[in-house]
């Protein structure tokens, strides 16, 4: 089982001080949080993609590449990559590059994005969200798996003899998770390809998560990728901890009461009952998290949200200390003891390369002029003129 954190990259006023961090401060804070995640023994850091305030993360590959350079074991992911409004050609190129730079420590989580106005900024329409997710991802898969692609579709210009570069590291594309809260079509898509399915599992009752995961598992089996309990499932979670649980509640309450997502609505206690939010001692977080398995089965990746709603960097780093020292080691042991042998671990670059029969150099060498990039015949034509 992989453990990590995911950030939605919000810039939110700290309600206890009234101070709002600058973009620069928040960006640097997220870098500190990511490197700390590796230091304390977590496996994964995942970063959201947004193109509107109050979020800063519009360029996940730039950010993740920087983090890759500062870390050695941390798996880097997105939460999520907008498969609807990004050009699949650019996703193929950017993440293959990140894969090389990070020595294979990268996977992606696809998402549609639910902010209507963002779509037209990138020439799209939110009403086509599902169709865009289907068509763009089908193209993305081909760009990573086929050296030369001829393609035409509804939502972008056709491709003739196109080669996306760099080719995936060792000839193996990054593993892909599909994230969705409510759209069964996305669970269906993940199942069809045998990809992972990630449910954000925060801000919503567990029943939603359970229904979606069950549906994905059933369809994963239907498409012949293995038994339902062998499907690759990831979950989010939201925690705030102090050694003494009442301290955790007292400290987190003003952040909860003013959070953009649920603030000014239900009480912290009500929301903790209705959703997987856990505010308390490390032991309470351990018990609650182990309980996730009761309704989704054995799963492969657990990511916690610990850095939103204006929590200061110092507090977030303390959360990571508690996760690394007291929570994750116990969860690792307990989940491993419960997991039957036939349930696979989350795929990694190493496991995918092994499954592909070993690494291969996937470079596509052009036959032509290696300075201008022109094909030989074109170059000769130009010379002859």
């Amino acid at each position, binding site marked *: 089982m992989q453990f990590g954190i995911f950030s939605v990259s919000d810039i939110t006023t700290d309600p206890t001080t009234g101070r709002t961090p600058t973009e620069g401060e928040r960006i640097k804070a997220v870098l500190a949080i990511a490197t700390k995640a590796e230091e304390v023994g977590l496996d994964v850091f995942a970063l959201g993609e947004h193109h509107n305030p109050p979020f800063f993360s519009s360029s996940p590959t730039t950010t993740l590449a920087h983090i890759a350079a500062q870390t050695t074991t941390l798996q880097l992911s997105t939460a999520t990559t907008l498969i609807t409004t990004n050009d699949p050609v650019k996703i193929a190129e950017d993440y293959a590059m990140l894969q090389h730079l990070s020595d294979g420590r990268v996977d992606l989580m696809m998402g549609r994005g639910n902010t209507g106005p963002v779509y037209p900024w990138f020439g799209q329409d939110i009403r086509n969200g*599902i*169709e865009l997710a*289907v068509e763009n991802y*089908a193209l993305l898969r081909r760009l990573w798996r086929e050296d030369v692609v001829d393609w035409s579709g*509804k939502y972008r210009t056709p491709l003739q003899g196109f080669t996306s570069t760099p080719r995936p590291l060792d000839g193996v594309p990054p593993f892909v998770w599909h994230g969705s809260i409510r759209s*069964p*079509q996305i*669970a*269906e*898509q993940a*199942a*069809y390809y045998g990809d992972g399915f990630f449910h954000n599992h925060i*801000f*919503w*009752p567990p029943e*939603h998560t359970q*229904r*979606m995961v*069950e*549906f994905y598992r059933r369809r994963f089996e239907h*498409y012949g990728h293995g038994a339902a309990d062998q499907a690759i499932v990831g979950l989010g979670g939201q925690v705030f901890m102090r050694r003494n649980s009442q301290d955790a509640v007292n400290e987190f309450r003003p952040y909860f009461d003013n959070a953009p*997502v*649920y*603030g*000014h*609505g*239900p009480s912290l206690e*009500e*929301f903790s*009952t*209705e959703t997987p939010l856990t505010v308390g001692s490390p032991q309470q977080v351990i018990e609650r998290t182990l309980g996730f398995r009761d309704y989704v089965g054995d799963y492969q990746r657990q990511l916690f949200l610990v850095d939103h709603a204006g929590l200061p960097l110092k507090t977030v780093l303390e959360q990571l200390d508690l996760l690394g020292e007291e929570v994750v080691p116990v969860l690792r042991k307990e989940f491993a003891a419960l997991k039957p042998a036939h349930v696979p671990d989350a795929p990694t670059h190493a496991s995918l390369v092994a499954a592909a029969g070993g690494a291969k150099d996937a470079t596509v060498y052009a036959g032509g002029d290696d300075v201008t990039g022109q094909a030989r015949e074109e170059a000769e034509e130009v010379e002859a003129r």
Partner: protein
Amino acid sequence: MTTRTLAVVSAGLSVPSSTRLLADRLTTATVEALRERGITSTVEVVELREHARDLADNLVTGFPNTSLRAAIETVTGADGLIAVTPIFSASYSGLFKTFFDVLDQDALTSKPSLLAATAGTARHSLALEFAMRPLFAYLRAAVAPTAVFAASEDWAGGDGVSRALNERIRRAAGELADLVAGLPTAPPADALQGPFGGTPSFEELLRGN
């Protein structure tokens, strides 16, 4: 004997409430009308007053809490709906509207429904037709032709309810009973059962269906 379920949504705010009183009269009349058609019925009442805070929370968080979810499932799972609201400022109350705002937009499609309202004076009676009926038309509910309005003066008759109101309740209940009685007895079999049973297969999604 066939059995059907009726859900009653009452948005009255006081206890006792004339809105609830009207809802109860309509319910009794509908149960009786169904019995005449050979159908027994079970009734569940949702008092929106008890969910006032739950509804506000749902607006903020995007999902119903356990208590409100049970109320929503009562309504969406019923064979027929009786919806009664007081008229405030020329329309249904905000509490009443909020309940229907937090339902999934398809949750009441083809649901046999009876609409009713209460107010201080008869001058509000057309709110049923220009506010309440359009709301249920948007939700694509199957609304009975007769809607029932009761002003304060209607409760002043000799038996507690004026003869005209009684007659109107009887007619509306009969219309709702006809709609409920006409429902098919078993849901059609789908290829994919369970939640998300209507999801297109990925082959269909790829073809753009």
